[in-house]
């Protein structure tokens, strides 16, 4: 039985889709069988970031409504044999997602994959609550910026109340993924620091992804950043985050810190 992860944030544009693609690819590069599922019905983009936009035939809504079999809708990545994509529908709206339909799909995927990574839409409505509903683990993607932190706090509240795990009285495993971090600006006092965000949200840290040109470059060419440039700073940060998801305990370093600080290892406890 595989693990179901939801990548969520509340706020839009913080890096959910980028992170879903990068972590999915990183886990698959390690040999695991991974499926990334786009829950953003009507505004799908995971297909584009993964470079599979021209290969979409069937989607999540088709599967839920019985118009296609799950195996017909899954798109295998051309670069990684063990990475699959289940795209969202672009033409329908989110009302076509039913709780029972989503449950069926997730149950089937869980049986066939090591990791099922659900890319949540922004907001706190149907699409977002259904994306988190069946999750075992939640990755809360946050930018070091006030509105993103506030929305993450709201999402953490929903993860602790609206998910199946929460309703069964179990504790949802939550991790913070801090994205678009600029160590120099934080050092100058112009940006919330890692510790500020950790203290406010008080969930364990999965990783810090530096603000980087490489992320845009990767989405331009339709490749997860861990595939397009696997030596880049964001790729290395995503690889570390993927290893932490696998239970490895590796210290979190702040990427892109200026020389002299570089290589400094922080004693912060990883997720």
């Amino acid at each position, binding site marked *: 039985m595989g693990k179901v992860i939801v990548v969520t944030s509340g706020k839009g544009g913080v890096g959910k889709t980028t992170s879903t693609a990068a972590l999915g690819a990183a886990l698959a590069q390690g040999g695991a069988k991974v499926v990334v599922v786009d829950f953003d019905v009507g505004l799908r983009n995971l297909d584009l970031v993964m470079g599979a936009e021209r290969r979409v035939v069937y989607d999540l809504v088709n599967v839920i409504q019985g118009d296609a079999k799950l195996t017909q809708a899954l798109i295998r990545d051309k670069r990684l044999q063990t990475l699959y994509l289940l795209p969202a529908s672009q033409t329908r709206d989110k009302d076509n997602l039913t709780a029972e339909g989503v449950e069926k799909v997730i149950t089937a995927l869980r049986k066939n994959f090591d990791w099922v990574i659900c890319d949540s839409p922004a907001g706190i409505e149907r699409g977002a609550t259904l994306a988190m509903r069946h999750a075992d683990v939640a990755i809360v993607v946050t930018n070091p*910026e*006030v509105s993103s*932190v*506030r929305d993450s*706090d*709201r999402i953490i*509240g929903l993860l602790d109340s609206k998910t199946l795990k929460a309703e069964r009285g179990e504790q949802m495993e939550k991790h913070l993924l801090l994205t678009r971090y600029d160590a120099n600006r*934080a050092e*100058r*006092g*112009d*940006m*919330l*620091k890692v510790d*500020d965000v950790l203290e*406010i949200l008080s969930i364990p840290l999965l990783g810090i992804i530096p603000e980087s040109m490489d992320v845009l470059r990767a989405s331009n060419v339709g490749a997860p950043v861990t595939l397009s440039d696997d030596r880049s700073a964001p790729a290395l940060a995503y690889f570390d985050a993927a290893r932490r998801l696998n239970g490895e305990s590796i210290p979190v370093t702040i990427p892109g810190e200026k020389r002299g600080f570089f290589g400094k290892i922080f004693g912060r406890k990883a997720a």
Partner: protein
Amino acid sequence: MNIFRFFAKSDSAPAARERLQVLLAHERASTGDSDLVKILRDEIMTVIAKHMQIDSDKVSVKMERGAQVSTLAVDVEIPFDAAKKKKKAA
């Protein structure tokens, strides 16, 4: 450049941190009853209306959230003949 910058502006991150801490402390405590101010306003109005005639547009209820305590300010404009009117109406 850096020195000019240093004198020109103070750090903004501590302000962000403090504002978030105050805001989230309240939001976490009050999930569900975000209409608290409206409820208080309506109930206060009902009580005042029992004793005098007032214009509902001339009542303002404000909540100021602080780190330790919050203050609720109720500002009611009472016309000098409000009590009389009420008596007449009764």
